[in-house]
Structures are given as structure tokens and as C-alpha cells.
């Protein structure tokens, strides 16, 4: 009997202890019950402040193996591509991000390049291809040859978040259009090779000027706008505008939770490209200067993009168009055309990527189709079909393999072979 009594008492004690604990948990004062001491709290508050004022450095890089699956005698190898399978570090992009003041953010992204080493230039007089060699002797060790490379500033901006409907960004920014150009980082992109319609820069890849953007939400849907004014395109558009016409652009994006993700966007850009040549001539004891337009055209770019996600299925599609009308005094010579001058052009194209995320190992097989139509008489059409496998080995590492076949039908160019190109790429891309 005493044993049973003690057992009951013990269980009662346990129940009382548990109830007391729950009562403490529901104590509205809570300050003593949560076990947080003041020093820990102050430490966290300091860390929070430090995190806000910290310079965040991160980036991405990729490493690619490329081989062309064509007969070694293919004319493509003589005209364009290397016949030898190649390893390459393609992108090494660094980001510097900082919240410079409340509501003020800054982002600088630059790409480290091996270029200009190996850059090829064709002599218009002899047709000879010269390859640039940046080899120099390292001044720290005269016995060692060093190839110097370059840096490309991809973007450098500061922005002020005035209101959810208005953020103003100033500097050099990535043009807000489509899907690929905004994603642009190899770990984020599904495929390995840029579609021709993106690589051809029918829109400027980035611009220097002002961008205003904001989002209006209504229920579970949202409408985002971007308005841009910039130097437009030019030979040195990142810091010098060579005409009075600013490049104007805009983008509207509608998002809704239809399926799992539904996003549709339209973008536009218009601007004037101007290249000038300045010269100084001494005549009659005076210096005469000229600053003539050597190339100038007005352009209008339009684009639409669609992104759908439903469960494991993903669809990305973009269609882009670019019209160029040359000024009378700015039409460049073109030795490949009968007239000897570059004609006005209307280039347009599209790509569609369909993918399915499998439940194993982050695997995502995909297919991609591309079409590019130009008004260049030499290469009027390019068709590409491809398939690949994207594997998110971890959130920060993406492995990809891709097989593509491209056709250039109707080409009258003497240097574009009339046979398809088959490419196999494998890539490791990572965020650091």
C-alpha cells in the first residue's frame, strides 16, 4: 500500500510539474520565462545592426567541357569552332552588396575574364586571323610568363526604396526584360548555352542610367513595372553618350498563383546607337576638327516572356524582336551584300524550355527549342533543338549536361557551311 501511495504521489508531482511549466509558458510577462538574458539580447541586436551594415561578398562561377560531335573534316571547324574538346572556366562573377543607409541599397557585380587573351581579329585586307596574346613576364618572377586578363563591370548601382510602388535605381543595371537576361547566372539558368535570340543582344544586356520600378499587389496577384532611361547603346555607353537621344524602355510583369507560378511579362526599348570618329587636321595654321557619325541607327526592341510552374513542371518561353533603321550618314559598309552597305534589319526569335523536376537527387531533364530569323542575307535563319539534364546537387551547386543541334538553313554566306552543328556541353556551376 505505501508503495502504491508513493507511486500516485510521484505521478501527481509529475503532473503538477508539467502544468506549472505550461503555466510559465503562457505567462504573458514571459520575460523571465523565455530564458533570454539581457546580454544575449544585446549581442543579437548588435549582430542585427552589423549584418545590415556589412558588405556582403558572394558570387558564382562555372566550369564547362565542350565538344562538337561532327566529323573532324567539318567545315565548321575551319570557319568558327575549335575541333578540339575543351575545358573552360566561363564565368567568375563577384557581387558586392551593401545596405548603404536605411532604404538605400547598392550592388556591384563584376566578371573576371581571361580575355582579351586569345581574342581573334580578322584583317579586312588579308583575311588573316590574328590572336591576341597577353603574355608578359611576371615582374615578381621574371622566369614566369603571366597572361593578364580583364574585368567586365556587369552592373553597379545604388537604389532608393521610396515606396513599394517606387524604387529608383541609378547606375549601370541589367536591362529588365525577359527571363534569361535577369537570371543570367549559370547556377540559376536551366540550360548551358544562351539561346541565340538572347546572345544576339536584340535588347541591350545592360544599360547605364536611371531605372524606376515598383509592384502593386491586388490580392494574390501583382503587377510590377520598370521604366528606364539610359545612354542607350553605343561603343562606350557605360560612360559616354554620343548623341542627344536617350534610350527609353519599360517592362510590365503580371504574376498570379495560377498553377503554382504564373508570370507573364512584356518589355520594350527604343534608342539610338551612334558611333563617331573624331579627327584633327592642320590647315592654314588652324586645327580643323571633325566628329562624324560612322555608324548610327534607331532601334526598337519588343519582347514577351512567360514562366509557368505547376508541381514539378516548368516552362520558360521568350520571344524577342529588334528593328534597326540606319541613318543616311550612319550606314556602315558591308562587303557581303550586293549594295555594299548594311541594310535595315528586323531580327526576331524565340526559345522555349520545358523541364520537369524529378523527386530524386534534384534532377531536372529538359528540352529546349530555338528559332532566330534575321534579315541578314548571309544567315537568315538559325534553328536549334536540344535536350539536357540539370541537377541541383545542392542548393549552391548545379551540374548540367546538354546536347544541342543547330541548323543554319538558307545561308548564302561563303563562310557558313551548309551542315548542322552538334554540340555536347557539361557544366558545373556554383554559388559561393
Amino acid at each position, binding site marked *: 500500500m505505501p*508503495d502504491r501511495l508513493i507511486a500516485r504521489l510521484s505521478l501527481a508531482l509529475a503532473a503538477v*510539474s508539467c502544468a506549472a511549466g505550461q503555466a510559465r509558458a503562457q505567462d504573458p510577462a514571459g520575460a523571465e520565462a523565455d530564458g533570454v538574458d539581457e546580454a544575449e539580447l544585446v549581442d543579437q541586436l548588435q549582430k542585427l545592426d552589423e549584418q545590415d551594415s556589412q558588405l556582403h561578398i558572394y558570387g*558564382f562561377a562555372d566550369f564547362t567541357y565542350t565538344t562538337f560531335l561532327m566529323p573532324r573534316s567539318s567545315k565548321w571547324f575551319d570557319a568558327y569552332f575549335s575541333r578540339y574538346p575543351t575545358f573552360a572556366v566561363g564565368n567568375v562573377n563577384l557581387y558586392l552588396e551593401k545596405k548603404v543607409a536605411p532604404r538605400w541599397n547598392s550592388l556591384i557585380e563584376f566578371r573576371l575574364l581571361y580575355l582579351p587573351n586569345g581574342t581573334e581579329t580578322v584583317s579586312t585586307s588579308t583575311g588573316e586571323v590574328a590572336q591576341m596574346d597577353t603574355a608578359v613576364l611576371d615582374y615578381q618572377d621574371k622566369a614566369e610568363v603571366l597572361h593578364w586578363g580583364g574585368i567586365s563591370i556587369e552592373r553597379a548601382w545604388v537604389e532608393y526604396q521610396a515606396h513599394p510602388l517606387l524604387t529608383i535605381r541609378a547606375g549601370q543595371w541589367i536591362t529588365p526584360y525577359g527571363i534569361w537576361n535577369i537570371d543570367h547566372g549559370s547556377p540559376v539558368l536551366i540550360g548551358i548555352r544562351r539561346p541565340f535570340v538572347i546572345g544576339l543582344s536584340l535588347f541591350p544586356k545592360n544599360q547605364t542610367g536611371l531605372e524606376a520600378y515598383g509592384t502593386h499587389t491586388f490580392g494574390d496577384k501583382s503587377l510590377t513595372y520598370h521604366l528606364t532611361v539610359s545612354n542607350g547603346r553605343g561603343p562606350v555607353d557605360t560612360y559616354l553618350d554620343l548623341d542627344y537621344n536617350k534610350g527609353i524602355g519599360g517592362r510590365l510583369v503580371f504574376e498570379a498563383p495560377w498553377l503554382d507560378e504564373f508570370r507573364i511579362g512584356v518589355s520594350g526599348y527604343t534608342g539610338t546607337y551612334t558611333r563617331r570618329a573624331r579627327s584633327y587636321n592642320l590647315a592654314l595654321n588652324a586645327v580643323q576638327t571633325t566628329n562624324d557619325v560612322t555608324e548610327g541607327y534607331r532601334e526598337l526592341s519588343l519582347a514577351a516572356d512567360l514562366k509557368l510552374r505547376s508541381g514539378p513542371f516548368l516552362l520558360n518561353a521568350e520571344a524577342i524582336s529588334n528593328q534597326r533603321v540606319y541613318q543616311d550618314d550612319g550606314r556602315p559598309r558591308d562587303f557581303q551584300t550586293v549594295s555594299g552597305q548594311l541594310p535595315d534589319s528586323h531580327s526576331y526569335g524565340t526559345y522555349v524550355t520545358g523541364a520537369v523536376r524529378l523527386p530524386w537527387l534534384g534532377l531536372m531533364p529538359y528540352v529546349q527549342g530555338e528559332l532566330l530569323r534575321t534579315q541578314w542575307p548571309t544567315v537568315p535563319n538559325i534553328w536549334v533543338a536540344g535536350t539536357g539534364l540539370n541537377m*541541383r546537387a545542392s542548393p549552391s551547386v548545379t551540374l548540367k549536361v546538354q546536347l544541342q543541334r543547330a541548323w543554319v538553313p538558307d545561308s548564302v554566306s561563303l563562310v557558313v557551311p551548309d551542315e548542322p552543328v552538334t554540340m555536347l556541353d557539361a557544366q558545373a556551376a556554383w554559388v559561393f
Partner: protein
Amino acid sequence: MRRLLATSLVLMAALAPIEGTARADDGARRPILLVVAANSPVNNLSLDDVKRIFGGGAIDFRPLNLPPGAAERVDLDRILFSRTPDEVARYWLDRKIRGQGGPPRVIPSGHLVARIVARVPGTIGYVAETALPAGTKALRVNGLSPADPRYPLVMQPRPSP
């Protein structure tokens, strides 16, 4: 008898909540409370607002996150974004590469989140505790209080450890 007493003591220790938190997962409904400073003018948010705030799309709140793997964070991400922890990690990395900003600041525990929210205006956090420190309040979501069975932010029942 001593063995019984010892067993009872072990049972007491096991059942007693740690640091005053009701952690015993007895299948009871555990809402995830959205906490802001008590003097915040905001009392209610739509679920879409919450998605925007914790998805990086809002500038009028400063969201605080719990560490990756914290049950509250896993469940909130699942409810708001239908994403697994790995998918959420990818989502934030992808946003950073696009230049759209990184994830909310991580605070080690829900207790600290609540205490910070009480002190730093504009911050918002989430906790699964039933007790909130002085100076904070829990928000309604879609007009529903956390006590309402229709409140959308509720933790998934987990087997007791």
C-alpha cells in the same frame, strides 16, 4: 519502490517543459504566431502580405527568420511557398544571383525573435510559443486570430522525440 520513485522523477524531467516552453508534441494544434511590436499600428495581414514579407518582396517590414531546419521555419516556408527547405535555399540563392536581395536575417531562437521585435521598430518575426514577452503582440492573418481553427499558419504535427 526506489526504482519506481526514480522512474517517476525521470518521467517528471521528461514531461517538464524546457525553459518554460510548452514543447510536448501531444498532437495539439500549434499556430505559428506572427509577432510585431505591441505599439505597431498593424494588427492584421493577409496571407499574401505575409508571403511578400518573408519572400523578399516587401520594404515596409523587416522580417526575421529562424535558423534553417527550425520546425517553425520549415512549416512556414511550406505553408507560404510550398517549398522544401532545399528548395527555399535555392530560391534565396537564385534571388541573390539575380540581384534581388538575400533572405531575412536569421535569429537563433523564437524567444530572441520576440524580444528583438519588441525593441526594434518595423521588425516582424514568427514563433510557435504560446507566451509572448511584454511589448509584443501576435497579428491576425486574413482577419483570423491564432486561436481560430481557420488560422492558416499552423505547424504540422510531428512525432514526439
